[in-house]
């Protein structure tokens, strides 16, 4: 599927629509042009989807001098990145995907801009496939904070919005960094507390309580320190469509955060899950996440790997749980774009007789510097 690099050509070529965001992000950071061809070639609806095009426009907003060519059918993209500028931007997200889909892109790029980013997103804040905004706020931001990207890093939820009409608004601010320190996250620790947020919009607030009750039912068997807040969005803050869902975060003794989120929209033609099912499902997802283990939860694996590869001053080491296909491809892409190769070792872990496998990843950081950053 990937053609990879040909010698002496200063661009990378890929095929297929998968891993679209990774490729764009890494191309933007490395400033290597990419060509992605055969995107949904031969399908009834060929070419890139609108939400994918949205990612390109989002990146273009924070760059100067990018040159993007998309052919008529949208099956081939030539992406020549410019210089990351950042600054205040506003982006109206496609309603097929949640804001989280776009935020995941921006989280990777934002610390390496010239100016601090202040991005206002409009669209769907919570949905079942992509990470909800709560999820990113309580895990990804904490990770970046732990990695040293802290002052001014925030996601502010101004209003919530569910599919299909959206109407949510989120303000994301991120500082820029001079230099990343190596990460050494090697102790997953044991789960000491579970926190969560159950949000409801344009439905009865009792739904939140029903979800919370279900979660408590699951987690109180394990530990007493379970605290889940309900967030009932009213009026303007509730967006345009009804829905409810929740996000659970488990914190371990070493500060590792593992999280899960679920959501369902309510409306005509949609069969929503019962709040009890949502609560149960979310708890089970979190249990699965706890079982997978590691110092980083599944969705943030690639973000952490990027930070490791970008760090200066030498070797970073992180223990992770099960590597997803997305992460594996990200590792390959890191090698293509930056030449950073990770040492990957599976380590059988038997904390409490579980006999599961953790993955030990280490790499020597490349000491990334963003070309837009000035000196004086």
């Amino acid at each position, binding site marked *: *599927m990937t053609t990879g*690099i040909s010698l*002496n050509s*200063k661009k990378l070529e890929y095929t*297929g*629509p*998968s*891993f*679209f*965001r990774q490729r764009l992000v890494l191309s933007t950071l*490395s*400033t290597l042009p990419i060509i992605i061809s055969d995107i*949904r070639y031969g399908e*009834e609806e060929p070419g890139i989807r609108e939400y994918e095009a949205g990612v390109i426009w989002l990146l273009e907003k924070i760059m*100067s*001098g990018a040159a993007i060519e998309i052919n008529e059918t949208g099956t081939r993209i030539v992406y020549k990145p*410019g*210089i990351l500028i950042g600054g205040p931007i506003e982006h109206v997200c496609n309603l097929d995907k949640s804001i989280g889909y776009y935020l995941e892109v921006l989280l990777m790029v934002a610390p390496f801009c010239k100016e601090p980013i202040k991005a206002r997103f409009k669209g769907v804040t919570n949905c079942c496939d992509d990470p909800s905004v709560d999820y990113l706020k309580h895990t990804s931001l904490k990770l970046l904070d732990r990695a040293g990207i802290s002052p001014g890093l925030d996601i502010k939820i101004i209003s919530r919005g569910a599919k299909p009409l959206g109407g949510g608004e989120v303000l994301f601010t991120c500082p820029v960094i001079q230099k990343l320190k190596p990460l*050494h996250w*090697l102790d*997953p620790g*044991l789960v*000491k507390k579970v926190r969560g947020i159950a949000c409801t919009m344009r439905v009865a607030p009792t739904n939140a309580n029903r979800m919370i009750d279900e979660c408590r039912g*699951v987690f109180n068997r394990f*530990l007493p320190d379970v605290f889940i807040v309900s967030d009932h969005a009213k009026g303007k803050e509730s967006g345009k469509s009804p829905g409810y869902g929740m996000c659970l975060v488990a914190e371990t*003794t070493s500060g590792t955060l593992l999280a899960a989120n679920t959501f369902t929209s309510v409306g005509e033609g949609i069969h929503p899950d019962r709040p009890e099912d949502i609560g149960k499902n979310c708890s089970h997802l979190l249990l*699965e996440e*706890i*079982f997978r283990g590691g110092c980083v939860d599944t*969705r943030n*694996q690639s973000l952490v790997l990027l930070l490791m590869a970008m760090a200066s*001053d030498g*070797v970073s*080491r992180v*223990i992770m749980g*099960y590597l*997803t*296909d*997305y*992460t594996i*491809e990200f*590792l390959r892409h890191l090698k293509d*774009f930056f*030449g950073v*190769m990770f*040492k*990957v*070792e*599976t380590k059988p872990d038997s904390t*409490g*007789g*579980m006999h*599961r*496998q953790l993955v*030990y990843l280490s790499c*020597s950081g490349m000491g990334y510097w963003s*070309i*837009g950053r*000035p*000196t004086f």
Partner: protein
Amino acid sequence: MEAQENKPHRKPHSGPSAVKKKRKNIKQKTPKNQNKKAFAFKSSVRAARSLRHTLDIETKRHHIPVAEQTYNTAEVPPYIVAVVGPPKVGKSTLIRSLVKNYTRHNLRSVIGPITIVSGRKRRLTFIEVDNDMCCMIDVAKIADLCLLLIDASFGFEIETFEFINILQVHGFPQVMGVLTHLDLIPRTKTLRRAKKDLRHRFWTEIYQGAKVFYLSGILNGDLYPSMEVHNLSRFISVMRFHPTQWRLSHAFFLADRVEDLTPFEDMRLEPSIDRNIALYGYIRGTNLPDNSWVHIPGCGDYRIGEIKLLQDPCPLPGGEKKRRNLNEKQKLIYAPKCGIGQLSLDNDAIYVDLPSKNANLEPSNDLISAILRTNTGVDEKLADADGVMLFENSEQVCDIESEEKRESSIASDTGGEENRENSTGSDSENDLTTSESDSDSEISQEGSEKSEENNSEFQNASTQVIKDGYTKLISTPSWTKMYNEYLDHRLGRHSSLQELIYSKKDTILLRKQPHTDDLLGDLFIVNDNRKQLVHDSSYSRMTVNFDFNNESTYQELKNLFVTGRKRVKFRENSDDNREFRNGFIELDDDGNEIQKLDNFPENEFSESESENIEKEVVKKQQIKSDYFKDLQQQTNDQDLINKGEYEQFDILQSAKYIGYPPGSYIRISIDSIPYEFINNTKANSPIIVGSLTSQELETTRYTHARVKQHRWHKKVLKTRDPIIVSLGWRRFQTLPVYYTEEHNKRKRMLKYTPEHSHCHAVFNAPVTHPGTGLLALQVLTANAKTTFRIALTGVLLENSQTIEVVKKLKLTGTPYKIYKNTAFIKGMFNSALEVAKFERSIIQTVSGIRGIIKRNVSKPSGHFRASFEDKILMSDIVFLRVWHQVELPLFYNPVCNHVDRDWNAMKTVAEIRHENNTPIPVQKDSLYQKVERITPKFAPLKIPHKLEKDLPFKSKPKYVMKSKGLANLKKPAVILEPNEQKVMKMFQQLRTAHNDNLRKRKIESLRKSELNEKMKKKVELKRLQSVKKRRRDFYTKVGKKQARSKKKN
């Protein structure tokens, strides 16, 4: 008897001896063993001040600790010693003398780098630097030590100063001056004077007290005196080198030799074919990863095809640490271009350098000569004829039976292959469990043949297990087991996760190829409407489903919570960031230790070790937290981690992760380099290979730099005049635009660089790290006109895609209608659109009345209405001050001196004009003309009668009669009395007599002064005559004396 009174001794009250004594007295007064407490500070202010002072001194010594990033370092790479100087100054002689001193080897010629072992821990690479600007720039970027050779009998030459300035820009390495040709200075006194003068001049350039070495003339065998060279070598051997930031972040090497790897046949067919070359050298700087981008100055950007680690041709002596000096065998030299080390082994070839006159290339054997004479290949002959004639005049070879046999054997071979393919195909079917498709079988075909059987067995087993797992899914609770099985399955054929990730064989299949069987006729392709499996979510659930209601699952999971089984100790190092210790000792219900749950090898440590760690923690807490010490500690810890991480690997294995370490001798191959590189590169010009990051590739963007025209460069530099810039590894020609940043951050274009201050420059160039130094030249090669070639120096500030450099533009217009404060203005704009763009902008008259553009007038277009703070005049000129964005040129032209020997730079306009004798075009508009101003005639002031009546008297106009008659009337004639008339007459006569007297006196004095003048002249003439005579006498005397003394000598 009176005692003799001697003059008493007078103590010195001033001068050095007095000071000395005073100091001595003070010292004696303060005994060493005094009670310190008794002499504590009396003043708190002074105490604070002195404390601050000591702390200041202490912190001045601090440097930011930098973690070492070169792990598994092979050996320190040889230090590069560049020998620089103008021609005929003795560069080669010095290198030959030094080489002779170190290795007892007599070099005939000095070509290319010469590496020698100079001590137990030190190797040196000497390079001679030609007097060529490109060479000097390249060498300045890589040299660790520069020996600047100066001809003492001649003095400094401009090249030396140029080189010093290049060094200053590219991270000043160590510099040592060497004065040669001292034997040509005749007298000791002048020699001493010359030495001193040159030394002091050198010091002002480098630093006060920089080392200058003196080499007297050439002695036996045209080398420098051995004692002096030996002393020089000792200075070199104790020198310490500090790498610059640039070199610490970029790997590079100086190519010892270059080999052309292009097949001879290809070259014969197409002599100008792009070449594949191999470059050899020691890695310097930092690690060089595989497949990294490199820049060869003078040639271009390339990607390394392959790195091969080679045996060190000039290794440091190992073992026996007691001996400090080298024995003869250890004094190695490697100088491939000088003809030393003629035999060199490679991974695919052995190179034997033979001088061409010694080589006997005539074939000694008849058979070989016959082979050489054949023109067509065997396969061609086979195709042509029934039989084959291997050589000229030989028998035809034609054996049909044997051919048949051969064919059959080929057939059976292919059959075997088919079988094998079938077998692998069946394997792949077996392992299809998840959503996989046909190209998986391709992958399995690629699978290594070695472990094929093992693989298939393994796969069969694993599929079995998985299937079982699925069937048991409802019944069996042990999901950890299932999970592990799932993970094993995921690995598939790969032995480890690492291999799964980086071998690239088992990628997720995303696209189905259209089946060729589905062709309907030739026209249509039936599209199977299966969608491509799109994978773009950072989350994916595991394919193993867990039963959360099961009690055993609950028990297993509970152990991941703090509420799980009891733990005795959670051992953790003081700082979990630094060292990972995840050791638990698990206890069963009785409190007995049942298992050590440490599977990480580094975690296996004994009880005593843990105690040690605890002690350390306590110790650390005792030490006061100190920012600098903490920082140092962190860096040291990171250092240890860096070293430890790849410790278990050898260089080749760790190269996958971090690249080849500096000090290793490697061969890199580069594909498709222009053939001129092989043919045109001068033998003595150094070839440097410097690594680049992906950001630093040759995509040009605008580069801002703070620059200053060099004070020795004779001319100021003009915007858009081409300059040749040396920045990072690169040298290129570009067109700069100079600008200055004003207080409001406006970037205003400057036509010329200011003479004595900094300004900014922006030009089109590849991206380089901000903070890198740069220099620029106007000409590369010196000619009779050029003096000092370095035109400007500076530092890079920023890379950007767009930049707003502006210049001032004044648009002028004139009023054509004025009402009170409003005026209508024409001539400033051409269209209503233009006016619309500048609405609300501020305008001004020449006299200083400010105004604002209000709106355009519908007709005539381009005219507009403006309002001013006061009424303006029709004669006023109104102007609008705007800032016009300057277009920045996109020119970028790398200096390819290795490809094109006579690389020509783009010329400046002035040069072209000078060559073609074209005069500078003059615009008539711009010429200054004499301004003739007409004095304005104002109409008389008329005050209305009504107003005049009301005015106070002071302001009322005063009418004065000016007619002649009236004036005469005022002055009546005076008639004198007779007496008065008499007096008047008397006075008149007296005045006349006096005037006559005065006239006579004047004439007399004039006559006298003339006489006097004449006398003076006479006397002067006489004096001059006598002086002349005296002089003549004196000189004849002296001349005679000299003649006499000459005769004596």
